[in-house]
C-alpha cells in the first residue's frame, strides 16, 4: 500500500457539526479505474472535491503521487483533471479560446499548445464548432468540451463527478469511450456515479460509500450488475 498512487488515511470532513466523511481509508493504484457508489449524502462528491484540492479536510491525510494535500496542493492539482456536472467553461468565449485559457492557466508549453488543443477538439468531436461561443452549445456539447478541458494537461488522475447528469445518448457514449480509453492508457480514473451497470461496465473496482466510510470495496471482474445491486442494497440499508 505504501506505493499506491492515491493514499487516503483516516479522512474526516465535517460541515459544521455534520460529519460527511468519518475516518475514511482508501488506497488506489496507478491505472485503476474506480467506480465510487453510494446514496446521496454518502460523501462521494465530498471525497472528489477533497482529492482535487477544492476543499480542505477536517482531519486525516491524503496524498496523490507522493504529494500531500493540502500542503502541496498545487503539485497535486497539476496531476488531476476533473469533469463535474457543471461544465466549468466561459459562455462568452468559443471552444478554442476556452481551451487556450486553461492551457495558459495550466502552463502548457506554448510550442505545442495549439497542437494539443486541435487534438482534443478532434477527439471530442467539436473541431468543426471550435469557433462558436459556448452559450450556443447544447448541454451535451458543453460537457464534451468540459472533458477536453479536463484532459488538456494530460493528467495522471481523472475525476468524474456524476458527469452523466442531463447528457444525451451520444455524449454519454463518448464519455464511456473516454473512460475506457483512460483505463487502456494506464491512467487512473475515479468516477462517482449512481448507475451500477455503468460501474460494472467501465470500472475495474467498485467502492461503495455509506455514512462516510468505505462499506464495500471489490474488483468488478466476475461481478454482474445484479450481484453489485445486491451488495449495494445490503451495505447501504
Amino acid at each position, binding site marked *: 500500500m505504501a506505493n499506491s498512487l492515491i493514499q487516503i488515511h483516516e479522512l474526516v470532513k465535517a460541515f459544521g457539526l455534520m460529519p460527511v466523511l468519518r475516518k475514511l481509508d482508501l488506497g488506489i493504484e496507478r491505472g485503476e479505474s474506480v467506480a465510487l457508489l453510494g446514496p446521496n449524502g454518502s460523501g462521494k462528491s465530498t471525497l472528489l*472535491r477533497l482529492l482535487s484540492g477544492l476543499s*480542505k479536510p477536517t482531519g486525516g491525510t491524503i496524498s496523490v503521487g507522493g504529494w500531500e494535500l493540502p500542503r502541496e496542493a498545487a503539485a497535486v*492539482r*497539476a496531476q488531476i483533471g476533473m469533469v463535474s456536472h457543471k461544465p466549468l467553461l*466561459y459562455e462568452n468565449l468559443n471552444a478554442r479560446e476556452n481551451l487556450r*485559457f486553461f492551457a495558459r492557466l*495550466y*502552463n502548457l508549453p506554448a510550442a505545442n499548445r495549439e497542437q494539443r488543443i486541435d487534438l482534443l477538439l478532434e477527439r471530442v468531436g467539436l473541431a468543426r464548432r471550435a469557433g462558436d461561443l459556448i452559450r450556443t452549445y447544447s448541454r451535451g456539447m458543453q460537457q464534451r468540451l468540459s472533458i477536453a*478541458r479536463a484532459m488538456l494537461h494530460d493528467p495522471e488522475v481523472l475525476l468524474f463527478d456524476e458527469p452523466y447528469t442531463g447528457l444525451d445518448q451520444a455524449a454519454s457514449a463518448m464519455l464511456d469511450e473516454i473512460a475506457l480509453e483512460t483505463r487502456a492508457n494506464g491512467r487512473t480514473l475515479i468516477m462517482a456515479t449512481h448507475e451500477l451497470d455503468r460501474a460494472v461496465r467501465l470500472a475495474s473496482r467498485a467502492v461503495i460509500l455509506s455514512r462516510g466510510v468505505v462499506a464495500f470495496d471489490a474488483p468488478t471482474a466476475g461481478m454482474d450488475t445484479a450481484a453489485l445491486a445486491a451488495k449495494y442494497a445490503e451495505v447501504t440499508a
Partner: protein
Amino acid sequence: MKTPFISAVLAVLWKDLQVELRSRELVGSMGLFALLSILIFSFALELDRIARTESVSGVLWVTVVYASVLGLNRSLAMERDQGNLDALLLAPVDRTAIYFGKLIGNFIFTLVVGLTLILLMTVLYNLTLTRLWLIVVLVLGTLGFSTVGTLLATMTVQTRARESLLPIVMMPVALPLLLSAVRASTGILNETPQEDWLAWVQILAVLNVVYMTMSFLLFEYVIEE
C-alpha cells in the same frame, strides 16, 4: 509543477479582456448607468453653474462607486455561474494570482468608465475636469474600490442574497476611500492650494496599500472551503 504567478495573473486578465471585448457587458452596463446617473443628478439637484462646482466631485464619485459595484457583480457572477470558480481553483496556480488577475481587469474597466465620465461631465456640466491631479485621484480611487470590491464580490456572489448584498457590504468598507477621494477632488476642482488637499491624496494612497495587503492575505479564505 506550479504555473508561474505572472503567467497565471496574465491568463486570467487576458481571459477577462477577451470576454469583455466580445460582449461589452461590463463597460456597456457601467457606462450606461454612469450616463444615466449624471443626468439624474443634474435634474434632481437642479445643478446651476455654482452648485455644480460645489457638488460635482460628489456626483462623480457616487457614480463611480455604484458603477464599480455593478461591474464587480457582473465580473464575479461570470466566475460563479458555470462553476468557473472551481475551474480556476482546480488549476495549479496561486489563489492570489486569480485575485490579482480579476482585480486588474475590474480596475481597467472601472477606470475606463471613470475617464469617460470625466469627459462627459466636462462637456455636459461645462466645467474643466480634465486635470492631471484629478486623473491621479481617479486612478487611486478606482484602484481602491476594485481592491476591496473584488474580494468582497467574490464572497457575496457565493451567498444566497448574491448581487444585492455587495453594495451593503462594500459601501461602509469603501467609505474611507470615497471620503478622501471626494475631498481631494473638491480641492483640486476648486483650485485651492495644493497643500490643502495633497494630504487626502496621500491618505488615498495609504488606504490602497492597506486594503491591498489585507485582500492579499485574506483572499484564499474567501475562495476555498
